[in-house]
């Protein structure tokens, strides 16, 4: 065999994304739980347990990602080695890690107690588990599966299709986990029968293995036609390959049964050892509450966000990009898909903005380019007016958002670079004029349509600015976070940190962090939907339940998602929504119609944001390669001819994006329904009455979900999706 072929074979690694991700996530979960339980039970969880579990996961990964997997259709011996790992290496290693408690302790406490708790307490489920882990069932399951998949018909079926092949491997792993369970008896499970039973248990399994291995080794003919009819590699004939595979199963497979058999026999014949429990320090079983995750404590990101000029750097980059977009909009190619003004804002920035809302927070406002000229205006010293009290609501910005959505479609702004450029100039001018004349961040808080969209979306963001310690705030007399000081201004949106709840109206400007003399403000991870389940008095906002304008803002964002993605289905959705809200409000008479309307409207946000994400993700994926050619074209349009001329082609729509779109919509639906259910429970203690409150609203949500599914299945306009020919 030449060196090149050997290298090629050993280089045949694959990286299956989801299994790799799953195994990594399981490892993280285990280690999190392991570190917790080790504090209270160090003797039960010595380090070798963790190493065993991790080795089990690693062996699983090797079985599915190494050349064993890529060569298994060519070499029986490779395939049998893979089966050996799945059946005899990974399962006992995983179980030696006693994974039960570490994996459970690795979960958030609320998930464990409220989510899984009711299921754990179900007698029927206990019964099923008892049956599954009973030695007789486990032995039969593993051996029947082992034999059934190795008879020629079963084996050929597995090789005929990847789905059957996956099922075969899943059967092996699952039944082997069950098989090794009574042998290892991982803590805290207790053996129902005698340990002596494990001796015939393992001997019996070894006999089955020996019989199968011998039948392969001594068959004298190739048993599996796929290997007889397929290509042969490494100069190994199909029969030799089969003999090698049989010998491997026989020798190595037997070792895996006989070694534990010997260990159990020695254990049973040894005198019982007296276990000594070391004294546990009083109170040590009460674990400290886990610290909240603070993004500001991360080395690079945290430092950058706290840095005095961090935001300005981001804004400068965004400002330079905006200038480039405006210039190309006026001077560049008139076709949107071939111009930075058609590609950057509508394909990239929009999509990344929404994704950032869901994974981090209001990053768009943090890096908003429109604020830089405003700072210039501030230096003129003209900002002496206060924003009129009667305009301090979201109503103007709601009108502006609707106007923006309408004009975007009516004037096809995405396809007309000049119009995009004018829009940006108008935005700069408005921000400059308003904030040059009025104090505070009046433009951001009361006018900016983009800002309002992001404020609404950030209600689902997983991070929020909060005080680290309430006691420190209570002792504070200067309140620099809102008033500012000589070095740093405070929050211009009037969000007073001790009373700030959630992300509404927060631009993530980080001024409060920089101003706080006690370093008492963090950027904490939170459970995204929880904020919508509470209704405290929020600083500078009040209660959500009394703000019809905020509810209307959320409704515009939600319905705008549907209108933007497929205008034709929007009107019926509006009607259905309006009707159901009216019904709910009527049923809930006495509860406060305003509160019901406001909070149920806000609960629609997950579905609306999911629709936005599904829609914009489609354009991002299908238009992913457009930035390079658009930059290329812009360079040529500006007269920089050092690059060869661009060639354009329309790529086919990506099919894989549909899965992600549907998954996002599913998540939106479920979160929306969950929010509705929890709100109904808050309003009506009895389950029946909660359901009555929820039903019409849930039906509207389901109709919205159906409309969303219908929309994503329609052929979308290929806005801005032309890439350069290779």
């Amino acid at each position, binding site marked *: 065999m030449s060196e090149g072929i050997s290298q090629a074979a050993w280089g045949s690694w694959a990286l299956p994304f989801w299994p790799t991700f*799953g195994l990594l996530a399981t490892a993280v979960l285990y280690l999190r739980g392991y570190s917790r339980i080790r504090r209270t039970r160090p003797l039960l969880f010595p380090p070798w347990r963790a190493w065993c579990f991790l080795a089990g996961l690693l062996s699983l990964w090797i079985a599915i990602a190494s050349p064993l997997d890529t060569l298994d259709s060519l070499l029986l011996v490779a395939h049998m080695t893979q089966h050996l790992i799945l059946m005899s290496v990974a399962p006992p290693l995983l179980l030696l890690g006693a994974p039960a408690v570490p994996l459970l302790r690795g979960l958030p406490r609320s998930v464990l107690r409220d989510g899984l708790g009711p299921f754990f307490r179900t007698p029927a489920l206990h019964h099923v*588990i008892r049956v599954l882990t009973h030695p007789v069932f486990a032995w039969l399951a593993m051996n029947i599966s082992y034999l059934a998949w190795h008879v020629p018909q079963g084996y050929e079926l597995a090789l005929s299709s990847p789905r059957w092949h*996956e099922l075969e491997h899943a059967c092996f792993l699952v039944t082997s986990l069950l098989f090794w369970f009574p042998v290892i008896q991982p803590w805290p499970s207790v053996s129902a029968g005698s340990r002596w039973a494990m001796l015939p248990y393992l001997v019996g399994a070894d006999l089955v293995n020996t019989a199968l291995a011998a039948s392969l080794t001594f068959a004298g003919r190739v048993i599996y036609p796929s290997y007889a009819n*397929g290509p042969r590699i490494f100069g190994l004939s199909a029969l030799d390959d089969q003999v090698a595979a049989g010998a491997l199963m026989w020798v190595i497979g037997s070792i895996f049964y006989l070694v534990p058999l010997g260990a159990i026999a020695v254990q049973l014949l040894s005198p019982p050892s007296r276990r000594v429990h070391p004294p546990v320090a009083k109170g040590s079983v009460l674990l400290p509450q886990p610290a909240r995750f603070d993004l500001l404590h991360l080395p690079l990101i945290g430092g950058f966000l706290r840095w005095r000029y961090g935001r300005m750097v981001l804004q400068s980059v965004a400002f330079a990009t905006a200038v480039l977009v405006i210039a190309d909009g006026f001077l560049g190619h008139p076709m949107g898909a071939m111009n930075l003004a058609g590609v950057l804002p509508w394909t990239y920035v929009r999509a990344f903005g929404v994704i950032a809302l869901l994974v981090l927070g209001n990053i768009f406002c943090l890096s908003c380019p429109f604020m830089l000229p405003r700072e210039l205006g501030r230096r003129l010293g003209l900002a002496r007016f206060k924003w009129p009290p009667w305009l301090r609501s979201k109503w103007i910005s709601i009108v502006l958002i609707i106007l923006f959505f309408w004009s975007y479609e009516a004037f096809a702004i995405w396809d007309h670079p000049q119009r995009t450029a004018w829009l940006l100039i108008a935005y700069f001018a408005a921000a400059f004029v308003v904030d040059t004349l009025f104090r505070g961040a009046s433009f951001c808080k009361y006018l900016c349509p983009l800002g309002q969209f992001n404020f609404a979306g950030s209600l689902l963001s997983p991070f929020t600015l909060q005080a680290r310690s309430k006691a420190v705030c209570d002792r504070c007399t200067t309140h620099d976070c809102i008033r500012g000081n000589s070095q740093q201004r405070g929050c211009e949106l009037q969000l007073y940190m001790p009373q700030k709840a959630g992300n509404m109206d927060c631009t993530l400007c980080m001024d409060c962090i920089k101003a706080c003399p006690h370093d008492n403000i963090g950027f904490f991870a939170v459970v995204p939907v929880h904020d919508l389940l509470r209704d405290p008095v929020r600083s500078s906002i009040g209660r959500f339940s009394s703000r019809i304008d905020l509810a209307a803002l959320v409704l515009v964002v939600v319905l705008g998602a549907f209108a933007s993605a497929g205008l034709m289905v929007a009107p019926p959705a509006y009607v259905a929504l309006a009707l159901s809200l009216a019904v709910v409000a009527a049923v809930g008479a006495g509860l406060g119609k305003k509160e019901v309307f406001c909070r149920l409207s806000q609960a629609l946000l997950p579905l609306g944001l999911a629709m936005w994400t599904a829609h914009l993700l489609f354009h991002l994926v299908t238009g992913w390669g457009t930035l390079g050619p658009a930059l290329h074209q812009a360079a040529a349009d500006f007269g920089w001819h050092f690059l060869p001329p661009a060639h354009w082609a329309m790529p086919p729509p990506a099919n894989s994006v549909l899965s992600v779109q*549907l998954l996002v919509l599913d998540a939106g639906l479920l979160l929306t329904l969950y929010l509705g259910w929890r709100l109904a429970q808050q309003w009506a203690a009895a389950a029946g009455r909660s359901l009555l409150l929820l039903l019409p609203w849930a039906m509207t949500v389901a109709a919205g979900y159906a409309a969303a599914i219908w929309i994503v299945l329609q052929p979308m306009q290929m806005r801005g999706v032309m890439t350069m020919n290779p």
Partner: protein
Amino acid sequence: MKYLFPLAALLFWATAVFGDGGTMLLHRDAGAFTVTLFAAPQPLHTGAADLSVMVQDRGSGEVLLDPTIDITVGSETVRLARGQASNRLLQAATVNFSKPGKWPLTMLVHRGNDLAQLTTECTVEPDRSRATLVWFYVLLPVGIILLFIIHQVLKLRSEV
């Protein structure tokens, strides 16, 4: 019953234990070569498909890593590349089957002075994967909602 969840988690990941894709469509001697064609998905359906080819020396059976392979499907001709296949003994490319039916497939293998041409026919079925995909994702929340209802009922019972 504390091992219920971990066992379920491990069983869940078991379903992600993949088999290697690609089913043999053709294995034939041609000129100085023995050529094997693999295809995924199986059965082939409309849309994108991965075709991978192993070329061996006909006399010695040694795998040849450097031949040039072109596959013509309908009017589309693609050149296969080793970097496209996870199995580095193969060369692979993606082709697009625009409609169901019988598709003629021509393979041209070229190495030094040796040239071989093979033709075969592959059957392409209508793509039902999109409908399956949509149904899966539509039924997924239904399943989760049912699970949630069971959860709530169990919770209520335990509280009673």
